[in-house]
Each structure stands twice: as C-alpha cells, then as structure tokens.
C-alpha cells in the first residue's frame, strides 16, 4: 500500500536496529519520511517509536543500520549533527532547563548576542514572544520554565523546535498534556509548517488525531514495521489491527460488583498556591469500597494538587481526611501510605521511579517494611516472591528484574510504578492521569487492572482529561475547575455536555500572559 514517487523522500532509515540493555527496541526497521507531509508513527508502548525518533534526532546512535538524507548517507552522531541537517524534535519527556527563562530555553545553544557584549536578553525575549504568540501559548517569555504547568512547558518545547527553521520536525506525543483548544492551535501550526514543505513526524496514541492530520502512516509493533499506508486509504480499525494484531478490544468491560462502605472521606481540603490563591479550594468528597471515582478537569484544575494533598506531600495543606471513618492524623507520605493510601504520580520519571535502581528494587521500594524479620532484617526470599508476583499479575515485560528500570519501555515503567503502589497493600488508590502517554493496548491493560482492583474492594480515585475515559471507567464522576470541585454525579446521570460545561467554569480567565 501507499507507493509514492521517491523524490518526495527527505529522510530514510534502512535496516536500523537498536538495542538497549535488556531490550531490543528496533529490529531492522525501514522508515521513509516525506516532504511537506505529516508522517504519522503509531504503535503500542515499547513498540520502538520513541527510539526511532531519538535515532533521527541524533540522541541515540543505531546499533546497526544506515540513515540516508536526500539520497546521501549521513551520520547523526550527536543532536548537533541532527540540527545541522535541519532536524528538530519535541520529546515526549520534556527536555527543558527549569532554572532558566522560557526565552533562554528557546535560544539555548544559539543565543542572540551583541557581539562581544554578551547575550542580548531583550531581543531574545522579544523574538521568543513572537514564536509563543504564533502558538497562542499565553506564556510570557521571561518567566522561569519551572514555574509553568506541564502543558505550557510542552508548548515551550514546541516553540523551540519551530524556532529552529527545521526541515524535519518530530513531535513525540505533543498533545498528551494539552487541552483541546491548545491542540487546535498546534494543528494550525502544523498545517502552516507543512505548507512550507517541512516534513512533520507525528507520534501519538490518540487515533482520532492521527486520522485528522496525518498524510502517511507507519505502524510499529515490537520494534518492527507492520504497516505502511496513506492515511486516507485506511481507517482506525486497520491501525489498531496493525498495532496489536487484532481488532480493538472494549477496554472498559464492566465487571459489576456491589459497592461497600465508605473508605475515604475528604473534608475541606485546601492548598494555598505559592503565588497566592488556592490550588485546591475546599474540596470535600467521599469514595466507597470498590468504587471508581473519576476526576475530570483541564490542565491546572487542581487534580494533581488534590492527590498530592491526600498523600501528604504538602505539609501546609488544610482540611481533614477520614479513612474508615477515623480521622487520619499522619501528615507525611510515610504515615499516609501506612494507613492505606497509595499514589501513582503523573510524572513517573521525576516522582515515580528511582532510575539507578533495578526493576525489583523499584517495585519493593515502598513496601520494604513488609519483608522485615526481627525488626531490621529484610527477608530476601520473601521480597523476591512478592516482586515476582507483582511482575506476573501486572504482566510487566521484564526479562530480568535485576536490570535497571530505565532499560524498559515507558508503558512497562508505568506498570512498575503501579506495582510499587499496589505492593503497599492500599485501601485507597490515587491514580494521576494513569493513561498519560500509554497506547491502546497498555491502556486496556491498566483499565482492566483498575476494574479488577475495584472488584477486589479497593477504592480508586483517578484523574483524567479524556472524556471517553472518564465516562467509561467511573462509577461516579467528579469535575474540578480552578481548584474547586464543581460537581459530583453518578455515571448514569452524566453526559459529555454537562462535564465539559462544568470543567470550563472558572477557566475563562485561563491565560496568564501579562503579569
């Protein structure tokens, strides 16, 4: 399918193989990228998409294989090489300097200078603002990146890549943290670049997005290319078939079970923002045994902050939490975990994993206390057994649990974080965007696990900005906006209209352009 003239091709990978410690991420993959088109790349977690892009961006070198550009073989030994060849990339995991301003980030390594008089900060800010305005980002270029929420940081990354005058622009899941309005803006920018002849490489798990903007599609499965076509020739069913080898599964199969007593009750949870105002504004709600409560909200609605208050990350948060009708007095994560609360954080690299430890050590990190004999000695056999159990029950692809956790794909790393939380034996599980950056197959896995755990009597709170997800998975739906809990309703009473309307309340003044 999809034979086109070869002179359209700007970059080609031939027979590229890439191995990491623990996993072969790419096996003899061929890829052709075309000029003035959106080249879409899909595949499950760990299929090798990100690896392929890292090779094109010069971040990784292929273990075997060749790269050809404009009919000539090239070497991409470093990101600088790639930039020289006009290749720009926006990574899935953000690569920004939090301690520098937005403008400094955009112009990193090619600062605007005034000859010998150093960096021209004023000019940088002005130019950066131009790029940001083109993206309608609503970000002032002289703010520090670390002060921005993650969605806006993503926009800064995109602005940086756009500013590079690239011939090939790679976007690795650029929309995973963007709101619907921000996505529209991004698509407009993509269309503009396309018209200028830029080859766009677009990686995403959101199939409807791919259908909307893609021209050519390449499907990866287990490091190999399983499908190659023009987007207008195929449908979503074809993509899913190529991705997982069978038709789409209904990911939220409803296992009906009765709900038990109330497990957790929040009363008046509030968290003050450093910049004034409340990030979480007097939230009260309760969840019963076996119940899944979906918390829907846009970026900055305060969902993550609410979860952080519940787990005890912020010592200055206010309000009361009751577990099994008893007030929870422990204030730090250690005490709260001991009382049966577990959190799966949104940002797994920064808050979920200890990168230099092994898969096994990461899994048992939060629950070492369970394996202790005589008050101090860790029973290694007991620990190993529990780790093997977790790997099996979550079907984590780990050839050897003693390998470093970074040798695994993103989806499997996410499972390790989930496994770590489950090994503490929680009563209440908080999942912050559990499906962020996860593909259809792994999503189904995670959702099935959530259903199963709820069936076993766990109370689950999860946050999401995906409407289908919140409608399909939740027993009850809560909507947050600007730190406030706008409404809580049964799934039966909820409709997409009501949810969207509720979530935009208080978001009318979202832009934070002028200080």
């Amino acid at each position, binding site marked *: 399918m999809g034979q086109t003239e070869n002179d359209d091709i700007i970059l080609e990978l031939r027979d590229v193989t890439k191995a990491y*410690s623990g996993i072969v991420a790419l*096996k003899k993959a061929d890829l052709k990228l075309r000029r003035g088109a959106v080249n879409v790349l899909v595949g499950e977690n760990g299929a090798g998409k990100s690896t392929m892009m890292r090779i094109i961006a010069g971040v990784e070198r292929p273990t075997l294989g060749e790269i050809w550009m404009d009919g000539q073989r090239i070497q991409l030994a470093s990101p600088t090489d790639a930039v020289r060849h006009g290749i720009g990339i926006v990574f899935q995991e953000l690569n920004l300097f939090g301690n520098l301003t937005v403008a400094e980030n955009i112009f990193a390594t090619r600062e605007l200078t005034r000859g010998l008089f150093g960096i021209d900060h004023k000019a940088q800010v002005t130019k950066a603002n131009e790029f940001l305005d083109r993206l309608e980002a609503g970000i002032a270029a002289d703010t520090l990146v670390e002060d921005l929420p993650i969605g806006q940081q993503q926009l800064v990354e995109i602005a940086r890549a756009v500013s590079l005058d690239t011939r090939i622009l790679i976007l690795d899941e650029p929309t995973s943290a963007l709101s619907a309005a921000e996505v529209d803006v991004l698509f407009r920018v993509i269309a503009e670049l396309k018209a200028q002849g830029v080859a766009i490489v677009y990686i995403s798990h959101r199939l409807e997005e791919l259908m909307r903007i893609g021209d050519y599609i390449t499907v990866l499965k287990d490091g190999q290319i399983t499908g190659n076509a023009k987007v207008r020739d195929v449908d979503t069913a074809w993509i899913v078939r190529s991705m997982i080898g069978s038709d789409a599964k209904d990911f939220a199969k409803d296992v009906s079970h009765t709900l038990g007593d109330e497990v957790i009750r929040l009363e008046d949870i509030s968290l003050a923002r450093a910049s004034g105002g409340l990030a979480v504004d007097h939230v009260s709600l309760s969840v019963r045994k076996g119940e899944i409560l979906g918390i829907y909200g846009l970026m900055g609605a305060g969902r993550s902050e609410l979860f952080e208050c519940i787990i005890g*990350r912020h010592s200055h948060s206010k309000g009361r939490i009751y577990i099994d009708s008893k007030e929870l007095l422990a204030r730090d994560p*250690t005490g709260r975990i001991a009382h049966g609360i577990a959190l799966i*954080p949104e940002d797994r690299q920064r808050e979920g994993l*200890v990168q*230099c430890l092994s898969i096994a050590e990461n899994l048992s990190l939060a629950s070492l206390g369970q394996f202790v004999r005589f008050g101090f000695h860790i029973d290694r056999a007991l620990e190993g057994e529990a780790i093997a159990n977790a790997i099996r029950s979550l079907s984590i692809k780990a050839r050897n649990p003693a390998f470093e956790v970074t040798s695994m794909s993103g989806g499997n790393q996410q499972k390790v974080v989930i496994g770590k939380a489950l090994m503490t034996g929680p009563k209440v599980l908080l999942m912050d965007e559990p499906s962020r950056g996860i593909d259809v197959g792994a999503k189904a896995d995670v959702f099935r696990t959530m259903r199963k755990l709820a069936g076993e009597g766990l109370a689950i709170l999860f946050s999401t900005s995906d409407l289908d997800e919140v409608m399909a998975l939740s027993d009850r739906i809560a909507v947050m906006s600007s730190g406030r809990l706008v409404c809580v309703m049964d799934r039966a009473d909820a409709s997409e209209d009501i949810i969207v309307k509720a979530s935009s309340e208080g978001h009318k003044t979202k832009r934070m352009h002028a200080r």
Partner: protein
Amino acid sequence: MTTATPMATALPSSSGSLLLTVMKLRTFIALIAVIIFFSIFAPNFLSTANMILMSKHATQNAFLAIGMTFVIVTGGIDLSVGSIVGLCGMIAGGLILNGIDLPMGYTVYFNILEVAIMVTVVGIAIGALNGLLITRLNVAPFIATLGMLYVARGAALLFSDGQTLPNLAGKPELGNTGYAIFGSGTLLGIPVSIWMLVVVALGAAYFARFVPLGRHIFAVGGNERASRMSGIRVDRVKMFVYMFSGFCAALVGLVISSELMAAHPATGTNLELNAIAAAVLGGTSMSGGRGTIGGTIVGAFVIGILSDGLVMMGVSSFWQMVIKGLVIIIAVVVDQAQRKLQARVTLMQMAKQG
C-alpha cells in the same frame, strides 16, 4: 555503523567481556598491582611488621571512607570528618587527663570504655548537627560540613589552647588506664583497630543490603522526590548518614590518639579528602545512588599502601602528592570507560540475538 561497528570487529564479544571483567575489578587489580610493585621496589615491604603497620594506616582512612560512602550515596558530602577526628581525640585526652569537674569541687574520672562511649556520642552529635543543618535549615551539604570543619577544628584548638595533651596512660588509682588498647592493642595477633574496622565494615555492608534504612540510602541518592513519594522519610535517612559518618570519625579519633598516647588538636587535617578519594576510587558515584562498602575499603587500602610504599621507597613527599592525585583521576576515567564499554558490549550481543 558509527562507533559501534569498529568496536565489534576489533573486539569479539569474548575478549570484550574479558576486558569488561578486568575493568570491573579495577580497584582490586590496582590493589594487587601496588602490592606487587612495592614488594619489588621497596625494601622490607612484605615483612609482617610492615604489613600490619600499613594496615593500621589504611584502617584510619577506611573508617572515614565507609561513613563517607553512605553520605556520598545520598548525594551529599561530609567535609567535617577530619576535624571531628581531631576534636574527638582531644575530648578523649581531656577526659582521661582531667576528667569532668563537677560544681561541688569533685572531679569525676571515667574508665576507658566510658570514655570511648562518650567520645563516639560526641562524634554522632556533631554528625547530627550536620544533618539538622542540611535537613531542617536546607543548607547545602558542602557548605554545612565546610562550616563544621572550621567549627570543630577551632573547638579542638580551643580545648587545650592549641597544646598537645600528652601521656594518656591514665592512673591506676583513678581506674582509667589501658587507653592504648584501641591504637596498639592486639587480639589473636591482629591489631584491635583492624578488628574494629572488620566489624564496622561488615555491619555497614549488611546494613546496605538487608536493612530497609540502608536500601533507602540508595533510593534517596537516586531520586529524592520519588523516594519521598514512596513514603521514605528522606530527612531521617540523611540524618542517619551524617550521624554514622560522625560515628566513624569519632572511632578514628580514638584510634589515633590511643596509638600516639597523646591528643594533638591538628590531628586528622585533610583526612576528609583521603576518605572521599577512597570512596571514589572504590566506585562510589559522586552524583549519588551508587557505591559499595567493599569497593570503598579496597580503595582506602590502595591509597594507604600507595602513600606508605612511596615513603619506603624514599620518594619525595611532593611527588607523592602528584602520584596520589593521578591515581584518583585515572580511577575515575577508567570508571567512565567501563560504563561505556559495558553498555556497548551488552547492546551488541542483544542486537545480534535480535
């Protein structure tokens, strides 16, 4: 293509992994190399007396390096250990010579076991002070312990107005004789200080592997935020490592003053740098998260034997410093090379297996 291919042709996987094994055991090989080198070029190097003497010297570094390893693994640094050695030696000397004056005109003297316990408590307390500065007041470890380096050294000098406290033999009528046991006593023909090192080293190695707090040390060094979210009490872990480092320094203070039977306030100057060097030589990563007690001990012995051997060969002390510095730098360079090679060898094998 790129750099991977020439590596693969030049190094079939078997010799690649051989080179890798050699590099992994580099600290150990370095230890054997210095021993062989000096047994050829330094007269009397292999004599039992010399071996024991060198071991005793290396022991001092090794104690400090064990404590330092835990601190570095959490991502911190402890510059105050050398000064704690000096201060603890002075306190031991002061307790033996002068006892403690009580307000009613009595003076209490302690037996040497009590003295030893009191001195280690002082060491732990100074470590706790470091820990509080770092965890409660958010002072960077480098600065907090640098400050403590000066404070503790100054306190040691103030203690006796800069004078040496001589003759710590104690008096039989006061019941405080026998202080020499830590520095020059032997048990089964081996110095007591070496037995103490064996106990502390085995304890620390066990602690790192089999005690939750020990495992937490590595997690905190690897990713502090994730550790906190996993319910690890990060502040408690940090307090522990600085207190343990203080404890190790106090032991060295006891051993040195007991060996000399005198306490000098400048004792232990620059020892913190030896301890850091030993830990790094043994494969501890300065960025935190990685390190082993075994590696650190071997590292301490390499440095100890190197300095003593060079003295025996009559190499000038100026050259000694240059050589010691080069060894440390080479160790780190090899460490980096090993990590790269290791990654490459396993990747090539996996790519071939497909």
